[in-house]
C-alpha cells in the first residue's frame, strides 16, 4: 500500500475534530427530554468530507471519525453497543449519500449547477438520510436503548438528518474552495453588502427566534422575518453566502427553541422539533436552489464573455501573424538607418577631418530611428496583449491613423496605396482601443488581400470617416473583385474564408466586437467593382446628466 501523504492526515484530523464538535453541537440542539437532536450534524459533516475527497481516501476519513464518535457519545453515558451501532448508521448515511452523489456528479461536488444541486438534494439530503434512519431505528430497537415506536424513531431520525444535510453539506462544500487570499479580491462595496446582509439576518433571527418576548401564540408571521435577508443573500451573495445565511438562521432558530424562546418554544419537545424541522427544510431547499440557479446563470454569462475575449485575442494574434512580413519591414527600416548612420560615423572618425556637427546630426538621427523602432514594438505589444475590455473615449480619426501606421509595412510591401479621407472633426466615440483597432486592421488586411491579384493601379484603399447625427461612420473601400450578394451572409460566418491561410474568424469577430460596442458592421459590393465595409459606432454622450460610467 502506498504511504499516506500529509494532506490526508490533515483532513483526517480535521474530520475527527469537526465530527467531535458537530456531535457536541448536536447534543446542544437536543430538546430535553426528547431523545433525538433537532439537527444532528456529524453525519452531514462526514458526508461533506467524503464529497470533497477522492473515494480512495474515504476509509481514512471514516476511520478518523470513529475515535471522535466514541469520545462524544461515551461521555453521555450511552451503552457501547448503541454507540457503535450509531457509528455504523452515521457512516452508512455519509457513505451512501456520497457514493450516490459521486455516481451522478463525478469529481468533487460543487454547487455550481442546478443538476449537481438536484443530485445532492435527492441522494444526499433525501435517500441517504431515509435509508440510514431505517437502520438507525432498527438498531435502537434491537439494542433496546430508549423507548418509542419504530416508525416514530424513523421519522424523528429522518427529519433531523435531512435538516442537517441541508444545512451542513452546502456550507462546508461552498467554503472548502475558499482561501483567505480571496478576501483581497472582494471590493469594499461587496464587503459592506455582506456585512449588511448578515447584520440584518442576525438581527431578524434574534427578534424572531431568540427573544423571550415572543411566544407561539403571538406572531407566527415573525417566522418570515429573516427571509428577506436570505433572499438577498441568494440573489447577491451566491451559494456560499446563502449556505452561510441558512446555517445562521437554522442555528439561531434551534438555539432559541432549546432555550425556550421564540415562536417554536412552549409545546411538547417532539412537536417543537418537528415544526422547526419542517419550517427550516421548507425554507432551505428553495433558497439553496435559487442561489445555485442564479450562480449557474451568471457563471455561464462570465464563461461566454471569457470565451469571447479569448477568441477575440486568438484572432488578433492570428492577424498579427499575417502582418509579420510588414512588421519586419517596419523594424528593418529604422534598423537600417541606425546601422548605416553608425557605420558612416565610424568612417568619418577614421578620416582626418572630423566634422563634429555632422557627428551630432548622425547621433540625433540614430536616436530618432531607435525611437521609431521602439514605437513599432510598443504598438505591437498593445495588440498582442490579452486584456479585459477597457472602454474609453476615442477619436475614430486617430484610430484610423494608428491602424494605418501599424499596417504601413504591409501596405508598402503589398503595393497598396491607402487614401485616407478623414472628417475634419469627429465627435468622440466610446470603446476599447485595441479591439476597435483590431476590427479596422482586419478590414485593411482583407482589402489588401482582395486587391493582391489586381494590377498596380488597382490597389487603392480608401478610408473615409464621417459623423452622422448619432454615430460616427468609418468606411473601407477597396478595388478588389468584390463579393456576390449570395455570399454576403457567409462573409460574417465564423470559419468562412477565401484565403488559403485564413482562419475565417476576422469578420465574424469584428462584427461581434462592433455589436458589443453598440454599433454596426456591414458591407456592400458590386461584383467586379470592389467592396466597401462600413462601421458605425454611437457617439459618446458627454452630457452631464446622461453621462455613463466608463467601466
Amino acid at each position, binding site marked *: 500500500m502506498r504511504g499516506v501523504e500529509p494532506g490526508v492526515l490533515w483532513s483526517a484530523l480535521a474530520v475527527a475534530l469537526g465530527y467531535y464538535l458537530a456531535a457536541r453541537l448536536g447534543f446542544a440542539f437536543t430538546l430535553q427530554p426528547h431523545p433525538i437532536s433537532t439537527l444532528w450534524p456529524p453525519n452531514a459533516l462526514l458526508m461533506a468530507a467524503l464529497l470533497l475527497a477522492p473515494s480512495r481516501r474515504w476509509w481514512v476519513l471514516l476511520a478518523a471519525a470513529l475515535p471522535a464518535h466514541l469520545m462524544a457519545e461515551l461521555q453521555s453515558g450511552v451503552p457501547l453497543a448503541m454507540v457503535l451501532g450509531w457509528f455504523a448508521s452515521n457512516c452508512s448515511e455519509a457513505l451512501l449519500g456520497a457514493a450516490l452523489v459521486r455516481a451522478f456528479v463525478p469529481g468533487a461536488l460543487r454547487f455550481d449547477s442546478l443538476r449537481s444541486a438536484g443530485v445532492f438534494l435527492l441522494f444526499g439530503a433525501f435517500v441517504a438520510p431515509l435509508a440510514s434512519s431505517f437502520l438507525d431505528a432498527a438498531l435502537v430497537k434491537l439494542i433496546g436503548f430508549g423507548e418509542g415506536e419504530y416508525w416514530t424513531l424513523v421519522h424523528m431520525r429522518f427529519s433531523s438528518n435531512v435538516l442537517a444535510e441541508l444545512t451542513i453539506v452546502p456550507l462546508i462544500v461552498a467554503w472548502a474552495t475558499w482561501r483567505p487570499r480571496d478576501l483581497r479580491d472582494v471590493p469594499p462595496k461587496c464587503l459592506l453588502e455582506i456585512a449588511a446582509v448578515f447584520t440584518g439576518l442576525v438581527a431578524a433571527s434574534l427578534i424572531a427566534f431568540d427573544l423571550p418576548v415572543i411566544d407561539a401564540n403571538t406572531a407566527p408571521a415573525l417566522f418570515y422575518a429573516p427571509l428577506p435577508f436570505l433572499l438577498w443573500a441568494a440573489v447577491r451573495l451566491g451559494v456560499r453566502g446563502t449556505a452561510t445565511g441558512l446555517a445562521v438562521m437554522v442555528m439561531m432558530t434551534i438555539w432559541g427553541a432549546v432555550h425556550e424562546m421564540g415562536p417554536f418554544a412552549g409545546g411538547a419537545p417532539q412537536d417543537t422539533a418537528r415544526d422547526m424541522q419542517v419550517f427550516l427544510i421548507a425554507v432551505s431547499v428553495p433558497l439553496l436552489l435559487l442561489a445555485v440557479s442564479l450562480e449557474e446563470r451568471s457563471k455561464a454569462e462570465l464563461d461566454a464573455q471569457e470565451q469571447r475575449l479569448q477568441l477575440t485575442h486568438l484572432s488578433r494574434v492570428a492577424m498579427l501573424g499575417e502582418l509579420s512580413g510588414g512588421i519586419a519591414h517596419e523594424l528593418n527600416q529604422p534598423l*537600417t538607418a541606425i546601422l548605416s548612420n553608425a557605420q558612416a560615423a565610424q568612417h568619418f572618425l577614421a578620416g582626418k577631418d572630423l566634422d563634429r556637427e555632422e557627428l551630432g546630426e*548622425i547621433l540625433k538621427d540614430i536616436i530618432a530611428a531607435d525611437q521609431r523602432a521602439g514605437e513599432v514594438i510598443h504598438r505591437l505589444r498593445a495588440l498582442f496583449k490579452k486584456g479585459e475590455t477597457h472602454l474609453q473615449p476615442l477619436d475614430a480619426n486617430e484610430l484610423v491613423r494608428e491602424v494605418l501606421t501599424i499596417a504601413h509595412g504591409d501596405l*508598402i*510591401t503589398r503595393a497598396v496605396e491607402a487614401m485616407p479621407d478623414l472628417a475634419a472633426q469627429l465627435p468622440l466615440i466610446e470603446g476599447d482601443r485595441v479591439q476597435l483597432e483590431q476590427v479596422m486592421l482586419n478590414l485593411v488586411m482583407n482589402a489588401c488581400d482582395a486587391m493582391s491579384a489586381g494590377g498596380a493601379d488597382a490597389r487603392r484603399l480608401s478610408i473615409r470617416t464621417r459623423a452622422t447625427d448619432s454615430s460616427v461612420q468609418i468606411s473601407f473601400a477597396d478595388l478588389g473583385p468584390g463579393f456576390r450578394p449570395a455570399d454576403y451572409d457567409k462573409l460574417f460566418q465564423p470559419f468562412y474564408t477565401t484565403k488559403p491561410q485564413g482562419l475565417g474568424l476576422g469578420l465574424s469577430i469584428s462584427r461581434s466586437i462592433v455589436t458589443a460596442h453598440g454599433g454596426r458592421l456591414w458591407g456592400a459590393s458590386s461584383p467586379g467593382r470592389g467592396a466597401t465595409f462600413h462601421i458605425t459606432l454611437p457617439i459618446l454622450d458627454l452630457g452631464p446628466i446622461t453621462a455613463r460610467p466608463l467601466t
Partner: protein
Amino acid sequence: MPSVAIVDDEEGIRKALSRLLRASGLDAESYANGQEFLDAAAAHRPDCVVLDLHMPGMSGLQVLRKLKAAGQRLSIVVITAHDEPETRERCIDAGACAYLRKPLEDRLLLNAISAAMRSHTAAIRR
C-alpha cells in the same frame, strides 16, 4: 568621384546612406521616389544606383522594368527591408546587379556598388 543615386522613400535611410557613401569617397545624390529618379536619370546618368524595392507609388521593380524598357543600362543595387522568396530573381531578371537585404552592412553595400560599377564598365568595354 563616382556618383551614386540613392532611391528610397524613407528620408532617414536616404540621409544615412548618403553619409555612408560620402564617408567612403563617393558622391551621393538621393531621390524620394522612382519617378523623381527616372526624371533626373534621363538628364544625368549616375555611375551606380542604390534602389529601394518597396516604395509607395512606383516600386523598385517597376523602376527597373521602366529602365529596361527604355533601354537604359544602369548598374543597380536593389535593397529591401522585406525579403520574399522570388524577389531576388525577379530583380536580377529585370536588370539589377545585386540584391541586398536591409539592414545593410557597409562593406557588403560598398563591395556591391563597386562590383556593379566594374561589371557595368566591363560590359560597356565588351
